[in-house]
Protein backbone atom coordinates (compact mmCIF):
# COMPACT_ATOMS: atom_id res chain seq x y z
CA UNK A 1 0.00 0.00 0.00
CA UNK A 2 2.70 2.46 0.91
CA UNK A 3 4.40 1.71 -2.41
CA UNK A 4 1.41 3.03 -4.33
CA UNK A 5 1.38 5.99 -2.02
CA UNK A 6 5.03 6.71 -2.85
CA UNK A 7 4.39 6.37 -6.54
CA UNK A 8 1.47 8.77 -6.35
CA UNK A 9 3.41 11.28 -4.30
CA UNK A 10 6.18 11.24 -6.85
CA UNK A 11 3.77 11.90 -9.70
CA UNK A 12 2.05 14.66 -7.75
CA UNK A 13 5.42 16.23 -6.94
CA UNK A 14 6.43 16.14 -10.60
CA UNK A 15 3.17 17.78 -11.67
CA UNK A 16 3.51 20.45 -9.01
CA UNK A 17 7.11 21.04 -10.10
CA UNK A 18 5.99 21.39 -13.72
CA UNK A 19 3.28 23.86 -12.65
CA UNK A 20 5.61 25.94 -10.50
CA UNK A 21 8.53 25.82 -12.93
CA UNK A 22 7.58 28.98 -14.91
CA UNK A 23 7.34 30.96 -11.68
CA UNK A 24 10.95 30.10 -10.86
CA UNK A 25 12.18 31.01 -14.32
CA UNK A 26 9.60 33.71 -15.06
CA UNK A 27 12.20 36.06 -16.52
CA UNK A 28 14.11 33.43 -18.48
CA UNK A 29 12.38 32.81 -21.80
CA UNK A 30 15.18 30.52 -22.98
CA UNK A 31 14.74 27.99 -20.17
CA UNK A 32 10.97 27.99 -20.66
CA UNK A 33 11.36 27.55 -24.40
CA UNK A 34 13.67 24.55 -24.03
CA UNK A 35 11.30 23.00 -21.50
CA UNK A 36 8.31 23.54 -23.80
CA UNK A 37 10.14 21.99 -26.77
CA UNK A 38 11.06 19.07 -24.52
CA UNK A 39 7.39 18.58 -23.63
CA UNK A 40 6.41 18.62 -27.30
CA UNK A 41 9.01 16.01 -28.20
CA UNK A 42 7.88 13.95 -25.21
CA UNK A 43 4.34 13.83 -26.63
CA UNK A 44 5.74 12.56 -29.92
CA UNK A 45 7.94 9.98 -28.20
CA UNK A 46 4.94 8.70 -26.22
CA UNK A 47 3.31 8.05 -29.57
CA UNK A 48 6.36 6.16 -30.80
CA UNK A 49 6.35 4.16 -27.58
CA UNK A 50 2.82 2.92 -28.21
CA UNK A 51 3.62 1.39 -31.59
CA UNK A 52 7.28 0.42 -31.06
CA UNK A 53 7.37 -0.23 -27.31
CA UNK A 54 4.03 -1.86 -26.68
CA UNK A 55 2.93 -3.27 -30.03
CA UNK A 56 6.50 -4.06 -31.08
CA UNK A 57 6.47 -2.57 -34.59
CA UNK A 58 9.41 -0.21 -35.19
CA UNK A 59 7.93 2.62 -37.27
CA UNK A 60 10.60 4.93 -38.67
CA UNK A 61 8.07 7.22 -40.40
CA UNK A 62 7.30 8.96 -37.11
CA UNK A 63 9.13 12.18 -38.01
CA UNK A 64 7.24 12.20 -41.29
CA UNK A 65 3.95 12.27 -39.41
CA UNK A 66 5.30 14.85 -36.98
CA UNK A 67 6.00 16.95 -40.08
CA UNK A 68 2.55 16.28 -41.56
CA UNK A 69 1.02 17.58 -38.33
CA UNK A 70 3.29 20.62 -38.32
CA UNK A 71 2.72 21.46 -41.98
CA UNK A 72 -1.04 20.86 -41.77
CA UNK A 73 -1.31 23.42 -39.01
CA UNK A 74 1.13 25.76 -40.71
CA UNK A 75 -0.61 25.68 -44.07
CA UNK A 76 -4.12 25.88 -42.62
CA UNK A 77 -3.33 28.87 -40.42
CA UNK A 78 -1.14 30.83 -42.85
CA UNK A 79 -2.84 30.14 -46.18
CA UNK A 80 -6.50 29.88 -45.18
CA UNK A 81 -6.24 31.91 -41.96
CA UNK A 82 -8.29 29.34 -40.17
CA UNK A 83 -8.92 29.57 -36.44
CA UNK A 84 -6.00 28.01 -34.58
CA UNK A 85 -8.01 25.53 -32.54
CA UNK A 86 -9.90 24.26 -35.54
CA UNK A 87 -6.61 23.96 -37.41
CA UNK A 88 -5.08 22.06 -34.51
CA UNK A 89 -7.94 19.60 -34.51
CA UNK A 90 -7.78 19.26 -38.29
CA UNK A 91 -4.00 18.78 -38.18
CA UNK A 92 -4.40 15.84 -35.81
CA UNK A 93 -7.19 14.41 -37.96
CA UNK A 94 -5.26 14.82 -41.21
CA UNK A 95 -2.22 13.12 -39.68
CA UNK A 96 -4.35 10.28 -38.33
CA UNK A 97 -5.97 9.81 -41.73
CA UNK A 98 -2.54 9.66 -43.36
CA UNK A 99 -1.52 7.18 -40.68
CA UNK A 100 -4.59 5.05 -41.30
CA UNK A 101 -3.82 4.95 -45.00
CA UNK A 102 -0.14 4.10 -44.53
CA UNK A 103 -0.79 1.70 -41.66
CA UNK A 104 -3.34 -0.30 -43.65
CA UNK A 105 -0.69 -0.91 -46.30
CA UNK A 106 2.54 -0.93 -44.32
CA UNK A 107 1.37 -3.22 -41.52
CA UNK A 108 0.98 -6.06 -43.96
CA UNK A 109 4.76 -6.23 -43.92
CA UNK A 110 6.55 -7.62 -40.89
CA UNK A 111 9.56 -6.83 -38.72
CA UNK A 112 12.51 -5.77 -40.89
CA UNK A 113 10.33 -5.06 -43.87
CA UNK A 114 8.06 -2.84 -41.82
CA UNK A 115 11.06 -0.88 -40.49
CA UNK A 116 12.52 -0.44 -43.97
CA UNK A 117 9.14 0.40 -45.50
CA UNK A 118 8.39 3.07 -42.91
CA UNK A 119 11.93 4.46 -43.10
CA UNK A 120 11.47 4.92 -46.82
CA UNK A 121 7.99 6.40 -46.47
CA UNK A 122 9.41 8.84 -43.92
CA UNK A 123 12.13 9.82 -46.36
CA UNK A 124 9.59 10.19 -49.13
CA UNK A 125 7.56 12.59 -46.98
CA UNK A 126 10.74 14.58 -46.44
CA UNK A 127 11.46 14.69 -50.17
CA UNK A 128 7.86 15.71 -50.92
CA UNK A 129 7.98 18.59 -48.45
CA UNK A 130 11.36 19.64 -49.77
CA UNK A 131 10.34 19.63 -53.45
CA UNK A 132 6.67 20.67 -53.37
CA UNK A 133 7.40 24.40 -53.36
CA UNK A 134 3.85 25.50 -54.11
CA UNK A 135 2.33 23.92 -51.02
CA UNK A 136 5.05 23.73 -48.42
CA UNK A 137 7.40 26.56 -49.37
CA UNK A 138 10.07 23.96 -50.15
CA UNK A 139 13.46 24.47 -48.62
CA UNK A 140 12.60 28.01 -47.51
CA UNK A 141 9.96 26.57 -45.19
CA UNK A 142 6.80 28.12 -43.80
CA UNK A 143 7.17 31.44 -42.05
CA UNK A 144 4.82 33.38 -39.80
CA UNK A 145 2.72 30.62 -38.29
CA UNK A 146 0.49 32.44 -35.78
CA UNK A 147 0.38 31.79 -32.06
CA UNK A 148 -2.78 30.12 -30.73
CA UNK A 149 -5.90 32.33 -30.78
CA UNK A 150 -7.01 33.51 -27.35
CA UNK A 151 -9.80 31.57 -25.64
CA UNK A 152 -11.92 34.12 -23.79
CA UNK A 153 -9.60 35.90 -21.35
CA UNK A 154 -6.72 33.46 -21.97
CA UNK A 155 -4.17 34.55 -24.52
CA UNK A 156 -0.99 32.80 -25.51
CA UNK A 157 1.35 35.66 -26.25
CA UNK A 158 3.79 34.98 -23.43
CA UNK A 159 6.23 32.08 -23.22
CA UNK A 160 4.65 31.12 -19.91
CA UNK A 161 1.20 30.76 -21.45
CA UNK A 162 2.57 28.59 -24.26
CA UNK A 163 4.35 26.51 -21.64
CA UNK A 164 1.11 25.86 -19.77
CA UNK A 165 -0.74 25.07 -22.97
CA UNK A 166 1.83 22.48 -24.00
CA UNK A 167 1.97 21.12 -20.46
CA UNK A 168 -1.78 20.62 -20.58
CA UNK A 169 -1.49 18.59 -23.79
CA UNK A 170 1.46 16.65 -22.37
CA UNK A 171 -0.45 15.66 -19.24
CA UNK A 172 -3.45 14.72 -21.38
CA UNK A 173 -1.24 12.62 -23.66
CA UNK A 174 0.42 10.82 -20.77
CA UNK A 175 -2.95 10.22 -19.12
CA UNK A 176 -4.36 8.71 -22.31
CA UNK A 177 -1.23 6.59 -22.82
CA UNK A 178 -1.45 5.24 -19.26
CA UNK A 179 -5.15 4.47 -19.65
CA UNK A 180 -4.54 2.66 -22.92
CA UNK A 181 -1.61 0.60 -21.67
CA UNK A 182 -3.36 -0.44 -18.43
CA UNK A 183 -6.56 -1.43 -20.25
CA UNK A 184 -7.31 -4.67 -22.04
CA UNK A 185 -6.32 -2.93 -25.29
CA UNK A 186 -2.86 -2.33 -23.86
CA UNK A 187 -2.56 -5.98 -22.83
CA UNK A 188 -3.56 -6.92 -26.36
CA UNK A 189 -0.78 -4.77 -27.80
CA UNK A 190 1.75 -6.36 -25.46
CA UNK A 191 0.51 -9.81 -26.44
CA UNK A 192 1.07 -8.92 -30.09
CA UNK A 193 4.56 -7.65 -29.29
CA UNK A 194 5.50 -10.80 -27.43
CA UNK A 195 4.23 -13.16 -30.10
CA UNK A 196 1.99 -12.32 -32.96
CA UNK A 197 1.23 -15.96 -33.71
CA UNK A 198 0.29 -16.66 -30.13
CA UNK A 199 -1.91 -13.57 -29.98
CA UNK A 200 -3.66 -14.72 -33.11
CA UNK A 201 -4.21 -18.15 -31.62
CA UNK A 202 -5.85 -16.51 -28.61
CA UNK A 203 -8.39 -14.98 -30.95
CA UNK A 204 -6.92 -11.48 -31.11
CA UNK A 205 -7.45 -9.72 -34.39
CA UNK A 206 -3.83 -8.65 -34.78
CA UNK A 207 -4.40 -6.71 -37.98
CA UNK A 208 -7.02 -4.37 -36.56
CA UNK A 209 -5.21 -3.96 -33.25
CA UNK A 210 -1.91 -3.14 -34.89
CA UNK A 211 -3.63 -0.64 -37.14
CA UNK A 212 -5.41 1.10 -34.26
CA UNK A 213 -2.21 1.23 -32.26
CA UNK A 214 -0.42 2.69 -35.28
CA UNK A 215 -3.07 5.37 -35.80
CA UNK A 216 -2.96 6.35 -32.11
CA UNK A 217 0.82 6.66 -32.29
CA UNK A 218 0.55 8.77 -35.43
CA UNK A 219 -2.06 11.03 -33.83
CA UNK A 220 0.42 11.75 -31.03
CA UNK A 221 3.03 12.68 -33.63
CA UNK A 222 0.52 14.93 -35.40
CA UNK A 223 -0.44 16.73 -32.20
CA UNK A 224 3.21 17.21 -31.26
CA UNK A 225 4.03 18.47 -34.75
CA UNK A 226 1.17 20.97 -34.73
CA UNK A 227 2.19 22.32 -31.32
CA UNK A 228 5.80 22.52 -32.50
CA UNK A 229 4.78 24.60 -35.52
CA UNK A 230 2.89 27.12 -33.43
CA UNK A 231 5.64 27.32 -30.81
CA UNK A 232 8.60 27.87 -33.16
CA UNK A 233 6.40 29.73 -35.71
CA UNK A 234 8.72 28.59 -38.48
CA UNK A 235 9.09 25.12 -39.96
CA UNK A 236 11.35 23.75 -42.66
CA UNK A 237 11.67 20.32 -44.30
CA UNK A 238 14.14 19.36 -41.56
CA UNK A 239 11.29 18.41 -39.22
CA UNK A 240 10.70 15.37 -41.43
CA UNK A 241 14.34 14.36 -41.73
CA UNK A 242 15.61 10.95 -40.72
CA UNK A 243 17.74 12.62 -38.04
CA UNK A 244 14.53 13.70 -36.34
CA UNK A 245 13.18 10.16 -36.16
CA UNK A 246 16.56 8.88 -34.99
CA UNK A 247 16.43 11.47 -32.21
CA UNK A 248 12.98 10.32 -31.14
CA UNK A 249 14.22 6.76 -31.15
CA UNK A 250 17.22 7.69 -29.04
CA UNK A 251 15.04 9.44 -26.45
CA UNK A 252 12.79 6.40 -26.33
CA UNK A 253 15.55 3.79 -26.03
CA UNK A 254 17.55 5.63 -23.41
CA UNK A 255 14.46 6.51 -21.38
CA UNK A 256 13.07 3.01 -21.63
CA UNK A 257 11.16 1.51 -24.54
CA UNK A 258 7.96 -0.20 -23.47
CA UNK A 259 7.78 1.61 -20.13
CA UNK A 260 5.26 4.27 -19.19
CA UNK A 261 7.66 6.88 -17.84
CA UNK A 262 10.53 6.13 -20.24
CA UNK A 263 9.59 8.69 -22.93
CA UNK A 264 9.42 11.51 -20.37
CA UNK A 265 12.71 10.58 -18.70
CA UNK A 266 14.61 10.02 -21.95
CA UNK A 267 13.34 13.09 -23.76
CA UNK A 268 13.85 15.56 -20.93
CA UNK A 269 17.30 14.14 -20.23
CA UNK A 270 18.44 14.49 -23.83
CA UNK A 271 16.80 17.84 -24.51
CA UNK A 272 18.69 19.34 -21.58
CA UNK A 273 21.87 17.42 -22.31
CA UNK A 274 21.82 18.82 -25.83
CA UNK A 275 21.54 22.32 -24.39
CA UNK A 276 24.49 21.81 -22.08
CA UNK A 277 26.54 20.35 -24.93
CA UNK A 278 25.48 23.19 -27.20
CA UNK A 279 29.01 24.25 -28.02
CA UNK A 280 29.67 20.75 -29.31
CA UNK A 281 26.43 20.72 -31.32
CA UNK A 282 27.82 18.84 -34.32
CA UNK A 283 29.74 16.37 -32.27
CA UNK A 284 27.30 15.39 -29.56
CA UNK A 285 26.23 12.46 -31.73
CA UNK A 286 29.76 11.19 -31.32
CA UNK A 287 28.78 10.40 -27.74
CA UNK A 288 25.06 9.77 -28.24
CA UNK A 289 25.56 7.18 -31.00
CA UNK A 290 27.68 4.85 -28.87
CA UNK A 291 25.34 5.48 -25.91
CA UNK A 292 22.49 4.15 -28.05
CA UNK A 293 24.50 1.03 -28.95
CA UNK A 294 25.61 0.41 -25.37
CA UNK A 295 22.09 0.90 -24.03
CA UNK A 296 20.67 -1.61 -26.49
CA UNK A 297 23.32 -4.21 -25.67
CA UNK A 298 23.48 -3.83 -21.88
CA UNK A 299 20.27 -2.03 -20.82
CA UNK A 300 17.69 -2.87 -23.47
CA UNK A 301 14.91 -1.48 -21.30
CA UNK A 302 16.59 1.88 -20.78
CA UNK A 303 16.95 3.95 -17.65
CA UNK A 304 13.44 3.30 -16.36
CA UNK A 305 13.56 -0.43 -17.11
CA UNK A 306 17.00 -0.68 -15.53
CA UNK A 307 15.78 1.14 -12.44
CA UNK A 308 12.90 -1.30 -11.98
CA UNK A 309 15.21 -4.26 -12.53
CA UNK A 310 17.61 -3.11 -9.85
CA UNK A 311 14.72 -2.34 -7.52
CA UNK A 312 13.27 -5.81 -8.07
CA UNK A 313 16.63 -7.38 -7.32
CA UNK A 314 17.03 -5.42 -4.11
CA UNK A 315 13.57 -6.40 -2.94
CA UNK A 316 14.24 -10.01 -3.77
CA UNK A 317 17.23 -9.94 -1.43
CA UNK A 318 15.25 -8.26 1.30
CA UNK A 319 12.53 -10.92 1.39
CA UNK A 320 14.33 -13.55 3.52
CA UNK A 321 14.91 -11.01 6.29
CA UNK A 322 11.29 -10.31 7.22
CA UNK A 323 10.10 -13.67 6.10
CA UNK A 324 6.40 -13.38 6.87
CA UNK A 325 5.19 -14.97 3.68
CA UNK A 326 5.92 -18.13 1.84
CA UNK A 327 9.32 -17.93 0.25
CA UNK A 328 9.75 -20.34 -2.64
CA UNK A 329 13.53 -19.88 -2.63
CA UNK A 330 15.31 -21.75 0.20
CA UNK A 331 16.97 -19.34 2.61
CA UNK A 332 20.36 -20.95 2.05
CA UNK A 333 20.64 -20.10 -1.59
CA UNK A 334 19.59 -16.49 -1.21
CA UNK A 335 22.19 -15.74 1.45
CA UNK A 336 25.37 -14.90 -0.34
Amino acid at each position, binding site marked *: MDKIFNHRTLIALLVVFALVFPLIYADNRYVLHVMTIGFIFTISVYGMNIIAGFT*GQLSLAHAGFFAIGAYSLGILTTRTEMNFWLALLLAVLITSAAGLLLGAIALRTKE*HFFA*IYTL*IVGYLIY*LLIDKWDGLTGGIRGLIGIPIPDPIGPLNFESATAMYYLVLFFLLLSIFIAVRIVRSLTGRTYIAIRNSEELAQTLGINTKVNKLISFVISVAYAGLAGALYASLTRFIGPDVASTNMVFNFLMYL*IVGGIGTLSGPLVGTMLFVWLEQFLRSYQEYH*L*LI*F*GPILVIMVIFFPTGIVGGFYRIKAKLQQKKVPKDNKYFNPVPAKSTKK
Partner: protein
Amino acid sequence: MDLFLQQVFNGLTLGSVYTLVAIGLTLVFGILHIPNFAHGALYLVGGYVTLMVMSATGVHYFIAIIASIVVVAVLAVLMERLVFHPLRNSPPIHDKIAAIGLVLFFEALVQLVWGTEYLRMLTPFDNNISVAGVSMTSQRILVIAVTVAVVFLLTLFLKKTMMGASILAMAQNREGAFLVGINANKVAMMTFAISGALAAIAASLASPINLVFPAMGHLVILKAFVVVIIGGMGSIPGAIIAGLVLGLTESMGATYISNDYKDMIAFLLLIIIMTVRPKGLFAKGVY
Protein backbone atom coordinates in the same frame (compact mmCIF):
# COMPACT_ATOMS: atom_id res chain seq x y z
CA MET B 1 18.56 8.30 -79.95
CA ASP B 2 21.92 9.61 -78.79
CA LEU B 3 20.28 10.98 -75.71
CA PHE B 4 18.69 7.63 -75.05
CA LEU B 5 21.98 5.73 -75.39
CA GLN B 6 23.65 8.31 -73.19
CA GLN B 7 21.05 7.71 -70.51
CA VAL B 8 21.42 3.94 -70.80
CA PHE B 9 25.12 4.36 -70.20
CA ASN B 10 24.60 6.70 -67.24
CA GLY B 11 22.00 4.34 -65.85
CA LEU B 12 24.41 1.43 -66.01
CA THR B 13 27.02 3.44 -64.10
CA LEU B 14 24.52 4.37 -61.44
CA GLY B 15 23.17 0.83 -61.32
CA SER B 16 26.68 -0.60 -60.88
CA VAL B 17 27.20 1.43 -57.72
CA TYR B 18 23.79 0.41 -56.34
CA THR B 19 24.58 -3.21 -57.15
CA LEU B 20 27.86 -3.19 -55.26
CA VAL B 21 26.30 -1.65 -52.15
CA ALA B 22 23.26 -3.88 -52.35
CA ILE B 23 25.26 -7.11 -52.67
CA GLY B 24 26.99 -6.34 -49.38
CA LEU B 25 23.68 -5.59 -47.73
CA THR B 26 22.00 -8.70 -49.09
CA LEU B 27 24.90 -10.97 -48.07
CA VAL B 28 24.72 -9.77 -44.48
CA PHE B 29 20.96 -10.13 -44.46
CA GLY B 30 21.16 -13.63 -45.91
CA ILE B 31 23.56 -14.83 -43.21
CA LEU B 32 22.56 -12.93 -40.11
CA HIS B 33 19.06 -11.68 -40.94
CA ILE B 34 20.06 -8.15 -39.96
CA PRO B 35 18.99 -5.23 -42.14
CA ASN B 36 22.24 -3.36 -41.60
CA PHE B 37 21.25 0.31 -41.55
CA ALA B 38 24.88 1.04 -40.70
CA HIS B 39 25.97 -0.10 -44.15
CA GLY B 40 25.67 3.51 -45.34
CA ALA B 41 28.22 4.49 -42.71
CA LEU B 42 30.69 1.99 -44.18
CA TYR B 43 30.11 3.49 -47.61
CA LEU B 44 30.69 6.97 -46.18
CA VAL B 45 33.93 6.03 -44.44
CA GLY B 46 35.09 4.23 -47.58
CA GLY B 47 34.74 7.37 -49.66
CA TYR B 48 36.58 9.55 -47.17
CA VAL B 49 39.44 7.11 -46.58
CA THR B 50 40.16 6.83 -50.30
CA LEU B 51 40.11 10.60 -50.70
CA MET B 52 42.31 11.22 -47.70
CA VAL B 53 44.86 8.55 -48.56
CA MET B 54 45.14 10.09 -52.02
CA SER B 55 45.51 13.66 -50.86
CA ALA B 56 47.73 12.92 -47.86
CA THR B 57 50.24 10.55 -49.44
CA GLY B 58 49.76 11.27 -53.13
CA VAL B 59 49.58 7.59 -54.05
CA HIS B 60 47.73 6.32 -57.08
CA TYR B 61 43.92 6.11 -57.01
CA PHE B 62 43.96 2.30 -57.08
CA ILE B 63 46.31 2.02 -54.12
CA ALA B 64 44.09 4.39 -52.18
CA ILE B 65 41.12 2.18 -53.00
CA ILE B 66 42.94 -0.87 -51.66
CA ALA B 67 43.79 0.98 -48.45
CA SER B 68 40.16 1.99 -48.14
CA ILE B 69 39.00 -1.60 -48.68
CA VAL B 70 41.25 -2.80 -45.87
CA VAL B 71 40.17 -0.07 -43.44
CA VAL B 72 36.46 -0.49 -44.07
CA ALA B 73 36.60 -4.30 -44.01
CA VAL B 74 38.31 -4.18 -40.60
CA LEU B 75 35.72 -1.66 -39.43
CA ALA B 76 32.90 -3.92 -40.61
CA VAL B 77 34.37 -6.91 -38.78
CA LEU B 78 34.69 -4.82 -35.62
CA MET B 79 31.08 -3.79 -36.03
CA GLU B 80 30.02 -7.42 -36.18
CA ARG B 81 32.16 -8.42 -33.19
CA LEU B 82 31.36 -5.50 -30.91
CA VAL B 83 27.75 -4.77 -31.76
CA PHE B 84 25.87 -7.38 -33.75
CA HIS B 85 27.42 -10.45 -32.18
CA PRO B 86 26.41 -9.53 -28.61
CA LEU B 87 22.92 -8.78 -29.93
CA ARG B 88 22.44 -12.06 -31.80
CA ASN B 89 19.83 -13.36 -29.35
CA SER B 90 17.98 -10.08 -28.78
CA PRO B 91 14.65 -9.18 -30.37
CA PRO B 92 15.10 -7.98 -33.97
CA ILE B 93 14.19 -4.40 -33.05
CA HIS B 94 17.48 -4.07 -31.11
CA ASP B 95 19.77 -4.76 -34.08
CA LYS B 96 18.13 -1.99 -36.01
CA ILE B 97 18.43 0.49 -33.17
CA ALA B 98 22.09 -0.38 -32.62
CA ALA B 99 22.73 0.06 -36.34
CA ILE B 100 21.13 3.50 -36.19
CA GLY B 101 23.42 4.34 -33.26
CA LEU B 102 26.39 3.37 -35.44
CA VAL B 103 25.18 5.58 -38.29
CA LEU B 104 24.89 8.59 -35.96
CA PHE B 105 28.36 7.91 -34.58
CA PHE B 106 30.14 7.55 -37.91
CA GLU B 107 28.49 10.61 -39.44
CA ALA B 108 29.53 12.72 -36.46
CA LEU B 109 33.03 11.22 -36.56
CA VAL B 110 33.48 12.04 -40.24
CA GLN B 111 32.31 15.60 -39.61
CA LEU B 112 34.71 15.95 -36.70
CA VAL B 113 37.71 14.65 -38.62
CA TRP B 114 37.09 16.01 -42.11
CA GLY B 115 34.54 18.80 -41.72
CA THR B 116 31.21 19.28 -43.46
CA GLU B 117 32.31 20.64 -46.86
CA TYR B 118 31.68 18.88 -50.14
CA LEU B 119 35.02 17.57 -51.35
CA ARG B 120 36.12 16.68 -54.87
CA MET B 121 37.99 13.49 -55.58
CA LEU B 122 40.30 13.93 -58.55
CA THR B 123 41.32 10.78 -60.37
CA PRO B 124 43.48 10.02 -63.37
CA PHE B 125 40.32 8.98 -65.20
CA ASP B 126 38.59 12.27 -65.94
CA ASN B 127 39.13 12.41 -69.69
CA ASN B 128 36.23 12.15 -72.10
CA ILE B 129 35.77 9.45 -74.67
CA SER B 130 33.11 9.59 -77.35
CA VAL B 131 31.76 6.38 -78.85
CA ALA B 132 28.91 6.42 -81.36
CA GLY B 133 27.67 9.79 -80.18
CA VAL B 134 27.72 8.80 -76.53
CA SER B 135 30.21 10.79 -74.51
CA MET B 136 31.56 9.06 -71.47
CA THR B 137 34.27 9.83 -68.98
CA SER B 138 36.72 7.03 -68.38
CA GLN B 139 35.68 7.15 -64.73
CA ARG B 140 32.21 5.93 -65.65
CA ILE B 141 33.66 3.16 -67.81
CA LEU B 142 35.90 2.24 -64.89
CA VAL B 143 32.87 2.00 -62.58
CA ILE B 144 31.19 -0.50 -64.86
CA ALA B 145 34.36 -2.48 -65.55
CA VAL B 146 35.35 -2.76 -61.90
CA THR B 147 31.82 -3.76 -60.92
CA VAL B 148 31.78 -6.54 -63.49
CA ALA B 149 35.19 -7.75 -62.30
CA VAL B 150 34.24 -7.60 -58.63
CA VAL B 151 30.98 -9.44 -59.14
CA PHE B 152 32.80 -12.07 -61.19
CA LEU B 153 35.49 -12.57 -58.52
CA LEU B 154 32.91 -12.66 -55.76
CA THR B 155 30.93 -15.34 -57.57
CA LEU B 156 34.10 -17.37 -58.06
CA PHE B 157 34.91 -16.99 -54.36
CA LEU B 158 31.44 -18.05 -53.25
CA LYS B 159 31.22 -21.01 -55.63
CA LYS B 160 34.76 -22.34 -55.72
CA THR B 161 36.29 -21.87 -52.28
CA MET B 162 35.48 -23.62 -49.04
CA MET B 163 35.00 -20.33 -47.21
CA GLY B 164 32.63 -19.04 -49.87
CA ALA B 165 30.69 -22.27 -49.89
CA SER B 166 30.23 -22.08 -46.14
CA ILE B 167 28.78 -18.57 -46.51
CA LEU B 168 26.30 -19.81 -49.09
CA ALA B 169 25.52 -22.85 -46.95
CA MET B 170 24.70 -20.70 -43.97
CA ALA B 171 22.50 -18.45 -46.07
CA GLN B 172 20.58 -21.44 -47.33
CA ASN B 173 20.14 -23.35 -44.12
CA ARG B 174 21.48 -22.18 -40.78
CA GLU B 175 20.91 -25.33 -38.76
CA GLY B 176 22.17 -27.55 -41.55
CA ALA B 177 25.34 -25.47 -41.74
CA PHE B 178 25.93 -25.89 -38.00
CA LEU B 179 25.36 -29.64 -38.29
CA VAL B 180 28.19 -30.05 -40.77
CA GLY B 181 30.48 -28.06 -38.48
CA ILE B 182 30.57 -24.62 -40.07
CA ASN B 183 31.93 -21.99 -37.70
CA ALA B 184 29.20 -19.38 -37.45
CA ASN B 185 31.50 -16.69 -36.03
CA LYS B 186 34.01 -17.07 -38.81
CA VAL B 187 31.32 -16.91 -41.47
CA ALA B 188 29.72 -13.85 -39.89
CA MET B 189 33.05 -12.00 -39.73
CA MET B 190 33.90 -12.98 -43.28
CA THR B 191 30.52 -11.80 -44.54
CA PHE B 192 30.85 -8.45 -42.83
CA ALA B 193 34.39 -8.05 -44.20
CA ILE B 194 33.18 -8.69 -47.74
CA SER B 195 30.23 -6.36 -47.36
CA GLY B 196 32.52 -3.63 -46.00
CA ALA B 197 34.98 -4.13 -48.85
CA LEU B 198 32.19 -3.86 -51.42
CA ALA B 199 30.91 -0.66 -49.80
CA ALA B 200 34.43 0.81 -49.90
CA ILE B 201 34.83 -0.07 -53.58
CA ALA B 202 31.44 1.39 -54.44
CA ALA B 203 32.12 4.62 -52.56
CA SER B 204 35.58 5.02 -54.06
CA LEU B 205 34.22 4.50 -57.57
CA ALA B 206 31.23 6.81 -57.18
CA SER B 207 32.98 9.65 -55.34
CA PRO B 208 34.79 11.17 -58.31
CA ILE B 209 31.37 11.55 -59.97
CA ASN B 210 29.27 12.50 -56.94
CA LEU B 211 31.62 14.36 -54.54
CA VAL B 212 32.42 13.35 -50.97
CA PHE B 213 30.33 14.74 -48.09
CA PRO B 214 29.03 13.59 -44.69
CA ALA B 215 25.51 12.74 -45.91
CA MET B 216 26.67 10.80 -48.99
CA GLY B 217 25.65 7.50 -47.43
CA HIS B 218 21.98 8.40 -46.84
CA LEU B 219 20.48 8.18 -50.29
CA VAL B 220 22.71 5.33 -51.39
CA ILE B 221 21.80 3.11 -48.46
CA LEU B 222 18.07 3.79 -48.83
CA LYS B 223 18.27 2.95 -52.50
CA ALA B 224 20.32 -0.15 -51.75
CA PHE B 225 17.48 -1.26 -49.49
CA VAL B 226 15.08 -0.72 -52.37
CA VAL B 227 17.33 -2.86 -54.55
CA VAL B 228 17.62 -5.59 -51.94
CA ILE B 229 13.88 -5.78 -51.43
CA ILE B 230 13.12 -5.80 -55.14
CA GLY B 231 15.79 -8.42 -55.73
CA GLY B 232 14.77 -10.55 -52.77
CA MET B 233 16.55 -10.38 -49.41
CA GLY B 234 19.65 -12.58 -49.54
CA SER B 235 19.77 -13.11 -53.30
CA ILE B 236 22.90 -11.93 -55.14
CA PRO B 237 21.63 -12.33 -58.71
CA GLY B 238 18.50 -10.49 -57.58
CA ALA B 239 20.61 -7.62 -56.26
CA ILE B 240 22.54 -7.36 -59.54
CA ILE B 241 19.44 -7.29 -61.72
CA ALA B 242 17.48 -4.98 -59.44
CA GLY B 243 20.48 -2.64 -59.06
CA LEU B 244 20.81 -2.22 -62.81
CA VAL B 245 17.06 -1.86 -63.28
CA LEU B 246 16.91 0.87 -60.63
CA GLY B 247 19.91 2.68 -62.12
CA LEU B 248 18.34 2.66 -65.59
CA THR B 249 14.91 3.69 -64.29
CA GLU B 250 16.36 6.64 -62.42
CA SER B 251 18.48 7.80 -65.28
CA MET B 252 15.51 7.58 -67.70
CA GLY B 253 13.18 9.19 -65.18
CA ALA B 254 15.55 12.10 -64.64
CA THR B 255 15.70 12.77 -68.37
CA TYR B 256 12.18 12.10 -69.52
CA ILE B 257 10.07 12.88 -66.44
CA SER B 258 11.64 15.31 -64.00
CA ASN B 259 15.10 15.80 -62.62
CA ASP B 260 13.75 17.26 -59.38
CA TYR B 261 11.79 14.17 -58.51
CA LYS B 262 14.32 11.57 -59.67
CA ASP B 263 15.18 10.43 -56.15
CA MET B 264 11.53 9.71 -55.49
CA ILE B 265 11.28 7.21 -58.33
CA ALA B 266 13.15 4.53 -56.44
CA PHE B 267 11.10 5.00 -53.29
CA LEU B 268 7.78 5.12 -55.10
CA LEU B 269 8.79 1.96 -56.93
CA LEU B 270 9.48 0.24 -53.63
CA ILE B 271 6.27 1.45 -52.04
CA ILE B 272 4.26 0.12 -54.96
CA ILE B 273 6.07 -3.21 -54.90
CA MET B 274 5.70 -3.68 -51.16
CA THR B 275 2.07 -2.67 -51.31
CA VAL B 276 1.38 -5.37 -53.84
CA ARG B 277 3.80 -7.95 -52.47
CA PRO B 278 4.57 -7.30 -48.79
CA LYS B 279 7.60 -9.60 -48.80
CA GLY B 280 9.14 -8.16 -51.95
CA LEU B 281 9.50 -9.61 -55.38
CA PHE B 282 11.30 -12.95 -55.65
CA ALA B 283 10.99 -13.50 -51.88
CA LYS B 284 11.64 -17.05 -50.84
CA GLY B 285 9.16 -16.66 -48.02
CA VAL B 286 11.36 -18.17 -45.33
CA TYR B 287 12.56 -15.14 -43.42
